[in-house]
């Protein structure tokens, strides 16, 4: 069953075409990778799905409902959250607060409740904090809960971004180069974390990644973009041997030599 469907999506920035007629179907509960050389339009594609950019043409369907024209916060409420290529945490807030921001829509406490410290508000606050703490435990950051986000190590910041994205209880999690800058050990842990989250939170994961080892190991379906167009799709083993993909990555000479 498909959860996300993209049909003929294009994005033009003036004369520059960042995405051209990209179509893809993402299966529910799958791990799907979007790969391609630098500048292939992968992040632009993510930005259109999350509502940061409006597509020039084409449609995006989440569980058969159109997402075009919605503001980013509404898209996120519908169930798509993401992490960023360049880490974008709220640096001056604590680790716990960062996760709680992710839960924003799920909190109900109003000004009235806060001012008079109503029991329901207190209960909700506590429940939120507990849930946030559990998520931190899940990604292994529970010992840093009151630390400012900017003081965390690089790998920990990546994991915090994931925890914050999960906090919104998404249906689809978009990971933009989650393993960038990680050492092999951290990448391995991340691979396991992504698989575990997919199973336990019933998620669909869509990721952009350059680390081919991770991509081949984790994904069930791969889409390849080059110069804004989709040039291939299929299972990891098909992609590995696809001449078009090899050409995009290594140049046409590599195909003939191989």
């Amino acid at each position: 069953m498909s959860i996300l469907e993209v049909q003929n999506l294009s994005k033009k920035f003036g004369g520059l075409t960042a995405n051209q007629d990209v179509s893809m179907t993402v299966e529910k509960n799958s791990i799907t990778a979007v790969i391609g050389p630098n500048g292939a339009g992968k992040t632009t594609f993510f930005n259109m799905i999350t509502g940061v950019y409006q597509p020039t043409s084409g449609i995006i369907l989440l569980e058969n409902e159109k997402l075009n024209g919605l503001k980013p916060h509404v898209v996120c409420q519908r169930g798509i959250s993401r992490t960023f290529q360049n880490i974008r945490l709220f640096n001056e807030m604590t680790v716990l607060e960062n996760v709680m921001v992710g839960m924003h829509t799920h909190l109900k406490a109003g000004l009235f409740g806060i001012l008079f410290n109503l029991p329901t508000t207190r209960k909700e606050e506590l429940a939120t904090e507990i849930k946030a703490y559990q998520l931190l435990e899940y990604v292994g950051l529970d010992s840093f809960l009151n630390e400012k986000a900017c003081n965390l190590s690089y790998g920990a910041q990546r994991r915090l971004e994931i925890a914050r994205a999960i906090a919104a209880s998404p249906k689809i999690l978009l990971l933009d180069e989650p393993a960038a800058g990680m050492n092999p050990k951290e990448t391995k842990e991340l691979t396991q974390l992504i698989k575990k989250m997919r199973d336990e939170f019933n998620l669909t994961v869509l990721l952009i990644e350059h680390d081919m080892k991770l991509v081949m190991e984790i994904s069930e379906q791969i889409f390849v973009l080059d110069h804004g167009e989709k040039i291939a799709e299929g299972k990891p083993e098909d992609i590995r041997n696809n001449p078009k993909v090899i050409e995009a990555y290594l140049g046409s000479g590599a195909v003939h030599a191989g």
Partner: protein
Amino acid sequence: MFNEVLHTIPQVLIDGLTLGAVYAVIAIGYTMVYGILELINFAHGEIFMSGAFIGTAILLVLTGIGWVSSLPAIVMLIAVLLITAVLTGFLGMGIERVAYRPLRNAPRLIPLITAIGISFLLQDIVRFIAELKKGNYIVTGPSLFTHQLSIKASSVSSIFNDATIKTSFVIVLVTAVIMMIGLDLFVNRTKWGMAMRAVAQDRETASLMTINVNKVISITFFIGSALGGATGVLFAVQYGTIDPYIGFILGLKAFTAAVLGGIGNIRGAMFGGLLLGLLEMFASANLTLLSHGIFGAEYKDVFAFIILILVLLFKPEGLFGKPVTEKV
């Protein structure tokens, strides 16, 4: 001479804290908007002034129908404060919607000029209405609190003089402190407060975390303006006579207070306001004495702004601000 300065301390403390509390609450309005939009909302001083006029107008109408004498003054004040706060809150929200939101992505200078324009507009609208209704733009409201208290500071230590306070001083101070505590709780404890801090740090990421950025900005303007308007009422109650131009100099001083505390930092603005109030009252009480009569009390504003210049020279990020390092 030192002893003479000490004599004035109790009175300076009382006057300074009261004036400082007024500065602090207005400074919060500047700092909140700056923190979230990096916009210096020069119209904020005029929101304060509008609050003073709305509050006075309500009081005059209520006096006209005889409610002021029949109800306890404090009940009246709370009612007027609440009504004014809501009205000025919506005023601020409306200004943001009409004048700033369409310019959100314009270069920073442009909304700044718009803010100055809005500020003139409000001055003239208020002046027009005041002259239409009262025949004069300088308006005197009914006085609610006339009782005087005397604090026998001399009984604590002979180096202090006694201080006198009007009851309204106490009320201004208490109300301002309640507003500041309320705001602090709001920003640090509630989900919208947290959303506000998130938007201030990174608007785009916040919007990708289910936060409705426009709503957060509207709430920020509402709260900042409601506090500013309520302070306007307090000011009117405290000083009696108001005119449409009180917002300018007071707004400027509150802005100074916000910069002093580190603009964008709410607790910094509160501290900056109180500090500026104290300094100004200290100057007003002692300048003549300290300069052997060369400078009179009327130089207190100069004194306040010299402090601002000194802070900017030596600690440009303000007392509570953090230096921003350029990222490479």
